[in-house]
């Protein structure tokens, strides 16, 4: 059996309060003994291009704001259906600024470079201002996010 190609990426800025949770979880995970690729801290979803191309599983840890209680950890599978939708959770791309995660997945699919699975481990945050500290509730959610990443990988490996 050939080993699975798995990428774990933390999205976010270390200087923006709860936005730092993605890179923090990815960094903690990188120190564990899993046979996965650590692609370092990423600040923009576009940074995934060229790093998650065609892998079996890409796991992205990211802070989100959805109205859920602060510190809530959810595992969201971005599948082809999501990527084809004009997802209400993420408006279509406009303006001068970046491209969101769904947009990046759609773009990667269009050029044949999408990962087979893209799963987001989403941690609900509240403080995203530059210079703000990570919320206690978000910090307390780090072990749960780590567990979610670990579970995803073990499950994928068992299914392979």
């Amino acid at each position, binding site marked *: 059996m050939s080993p699975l190609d798995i990428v774990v990426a933390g999205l976010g800025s*270390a*200087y923006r309060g709860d936005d730092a949770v993605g890179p923090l979880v990815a960094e903690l995970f990188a120190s564990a003994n899993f046979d996965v690729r650590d692609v*370092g801290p990423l600040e923009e979803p576009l940074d995934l291009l060229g790093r998650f191309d065609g892998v079996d599983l890409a796991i992205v840890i990211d802070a989100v704001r959805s109205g859920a209680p602060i510190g809530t950890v959810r595992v969201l599978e971005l599948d082809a259906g999501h990527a084809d939708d004009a997802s209400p959770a993420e408006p279509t791309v406009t303006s*001068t*600024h*970046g*491209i969101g995660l769904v947009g990046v997945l759609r*773009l990667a699919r269009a050029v044949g*470079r999408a990962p087979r699975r893209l799963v987001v481990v989403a941690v609900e945050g509240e403080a995203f201002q530059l210079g703000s500290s990570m919320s206690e509730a978000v910090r307390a959610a780090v072990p749960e996010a780590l567990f979610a990443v670990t579970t995803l990988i073990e499950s994928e490996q068992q299914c392979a």
Partner: protein
Amino acid sequence: MTHGTNRTRTVNAEGIARVEGEGSLRVVVHDGTVSEVSLDIFEPPRYFEAMLVGRHFSEAPDITARICGICPVAYQLTACAAMEDATGIVVSDRVQLLRRLLYCGEWIQSHALHVYLLHAPDFLNCQDAVELAERDPRVIERGLALKRTGNLVMETVGGRAVHPVNVRVGGFYSAPEPAAIAALAGPLERALDAALATVDWVAGFDFPEVTSSYRFVALRQDGRYAIDAGRPRSSDGLDVTPGHFAELSVEEHVARSTALHARLDGRSYLTGPLARYALNVHLFPEVVRHAARAAGLGETCVNPFQSIVIRALEIAFACDEALRLVAQYEPPVPAADVVIARAGVGTGVTEAPRGLLLHQYEIDADGNIVRARIMPPTSQNQLTIEEDLRRVVEGGLDLDDDNLQWRCEQAVRNHDPCISCAAHFLDLQVVHS
């Protein structure tokens, strides 16, 4: 999205944003005349300037790299230049050439990102790069291949592409093995071909016939197209040291905006690809000059919409220059000079992909930072972008909200404000009174 009464209308241009509420554009029209254009851009460097005070000078490259995920090398190398100026260090030629190679990688990846994913859709009647990719995947794949090559150069020299970890004041933590650098030649040769094809592609776009009277400012670097060092020069004859430029270029708060606005001798100016091209085109290698002529460009370009052609030319230049640097690479020994702290003030300037970047630091005898000043291209270009926007709005008052919004966004995109340094969330508000 439009809100309004008979006398007032508001148009919100909401971009994809992971952090919102940090940029806005306000336009006031009185009796059919534009009386105010205000582009409010949030600027992370202000936070970092404060955070750097009290930190050791050796930390500045890694801390300032976090200002921008797209152009971390620009921040790192400008911080290094400023600290080396403050401590009286002149790095070896080998270190400087390796820095230039690293910077070429950043130019390639950053310009490829902007040309293909952010700017080209404007000219192809696409809402965004995703739509363009679905319509013409081969074109976007060419852009992504260019971006990967830039990332490869950054990873090989800098240790990783996002926030490189191999840069330090005085040089590098370790010098790449010659074999690793030599292995870049193949990808760079293919990238040069792709870059020249990019020039052909974008030169064929339909550009609005707009001309502007810009005051250009760019670095001039001893016989080379400036990237990693140089003296600031302007299209109206200024030629000064970096330190003198820091004195002349004054950033000021204006009441209507939270962003700083830079003026040079009291007037607006423009840095970036259009400025570099106007002041340094004769320093392009022949392969790039030939491509410029074939693209129909003269010795200067004053149509901001054609900045996409200049960026494509600069990708080709960066590939060609990187190939030259790869061919002559010799590892610096030692990889870094020993830098001993002393009290002083140092200024560094480099050409970030978006324009001239200036760092100035005052450090004490122990090497701790007493004062930090970071002047990104976006704050220097702010007034000029507003002037462009004023022309766009004046010429588009008959447009409906959506089209005026789109035209304004294009005018901003022409100058490629950094994703991280500039607006994350653009609210366009047009008030008619």
